[in-house]
């Protein structure tokens, strides 16, 4: 078996006195699409944000392609913070897509996608923009390069955000409810871009309420409830014969809403 792209061990996340993630163990297989599902407040977004190091786990370890993210266990078995440069190097393998797109409103689509290439990687402007155009073309927005985010639809903005993350050639892409802020007509274009990405063999972790997407594109589904990872398995296991009563209950609400053909 190959090394998992991301491996999470005994992760705990507390906000003050509230424990929002408890004893999470998860392996994200390389080149596959892993989906995190669960009810609101189950901790799936927090878990994803821990993987992006936007939240620092309170306990436990995360490794990305074998390298520790943020913290490592020293010789005495204590948890120790890694130097900032090392944290940045590991984070560079990861691209993040947010529910609210988080495009920078004062930059055009091209500016958003080429920004990190220019400022972080010191790529000359012309070359950075050329590489950014390749990514914009990939998400079908080459003809919108000069538009500001305010001039784009929600779906287009999210595709620009995906292009922005892809421009840095990450090994892993994290998606935090990428279609939740979009109306149903626009979710399709974003999910299509994600499907293409999955088909290319990108390692993806997707937090989503799009059970249909999870069932058809996901290779591994993890179900969280109340901060615990209750079940991880293949979509067929999860959706065809949900073994866990809580998962069954959760899926029922979706089946009720017309997703029964998935079962």
């Amino acid at each position, binding site marked *: 078996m190959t090394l998992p792209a991301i491996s999470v061990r005994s992760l705990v996340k507390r906000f003050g006195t509230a424990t929002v993630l408890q004893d999470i163990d998860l392996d994200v297989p390389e080149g596959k699409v892993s989906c995190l599902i669960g009810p609101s407040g189950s901790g799936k977004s927090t878990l994803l944000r821990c993987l*992006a190091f*936007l939240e620092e786990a309170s306990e436990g370890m995360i490794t990305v392609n074998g390298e520790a993210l943020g913290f490592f266990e020293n010789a005495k078995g204590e948890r120790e913070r890694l130097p900032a440069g090392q944290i*940045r190097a590991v*984070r*560079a393998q*990861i*691209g*993040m897509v*947010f529910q*609210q797109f*988080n*495009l*920078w*409103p*004062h930059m055009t689509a091209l500016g958003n996608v080429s*920004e*990190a290439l220019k*400022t*972080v*990687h010191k790529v000359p402007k012309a070359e950075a923009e050329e590489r950014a155009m390749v990514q914009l073309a990939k998400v079908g927005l080459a003809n919108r390069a000069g538009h*500001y985010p*305010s*001039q784009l639809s929600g779906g287009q903005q999210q595709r620009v*955000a995906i292009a*922005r*993350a892809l421009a*840095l050639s990450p090994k892993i892409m994290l998606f935090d409810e990428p279609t939740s802020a979009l109306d149903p007509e626009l979710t399709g274009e974003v999910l299509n871009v994600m499907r293409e990405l999955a088909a290319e063999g990108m390692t993806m972790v997707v937090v989503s309420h799009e059970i249909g997407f999870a069932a058809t594109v996901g290779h591994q589904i993890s179900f969280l409830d109340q901060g615990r990872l209750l079940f991880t398995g293949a979509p067929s296991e999860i959706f065809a014969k949900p073994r866990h009563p809580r998962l069954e209950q959760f899926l029922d609400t979706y089946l009720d809403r017309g997703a029964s053909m998935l079962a």
Partner: protein
Amino acid sequence: MIFDPNVILKHLPEIISGTGVTLALWIAGMLLGILIGFIVATLRRYGGRAVDLPLGFVVEVLRGTPFLIQIFLVYYGGPFVGLSLDPVPCGLLGLSVYAAAYYSEIFRAGYASVPHGHVEAGECLGLSRLQIIRRILLPEMALIVLPPSVNLAVILLKESAVLSIITVPELTTTVSAIGSQEYAFLEAIFLLAVIYWVIVEAAARLGRLAETRLSTFRFAAS
């Protein structure tokens, strides 16, 4: 009493010089205030409670006491703590610090106006804290901080008249002296009002121009 414009013409060189001192102190005080205010707001944002609380206290004291009292304290109290300053540097120091307190609050609001997700997006892409400030936070807050900054600039210009009490040879000092010397108090006061108002009006127009330029340049209308 008859309004006599000849008094003004007679003392034109002094009036021009006084206006020059006022403009110089105002612009220098404002620029230093913006610089220090920005640094204070940035330190308060990133420095943790140990930095935020004491700086916040200083800002509150500066905003909670009259500028007149602050200037008196620095000019007459300064020598007791080894800070003996001539009127002009003392005035500049006072004006800059006073401005910095208010500008720091404007920048604090500016920082708070940028959605945190925009910063997180930058972090995920590897931008350093400084790059995030320079490339994301400052440009995004520009439109938010511009109107209150222009407003503060106008207030500062008028507050600079207070510097006449420590004999800074600025506009109010100069024109008041002419008034006393020529027994032309009304002309002097009237002239002062006109000159301040003209500068304020020019500053406000400049501010509005900048605002329009910035909004069309930064966020193209959809």
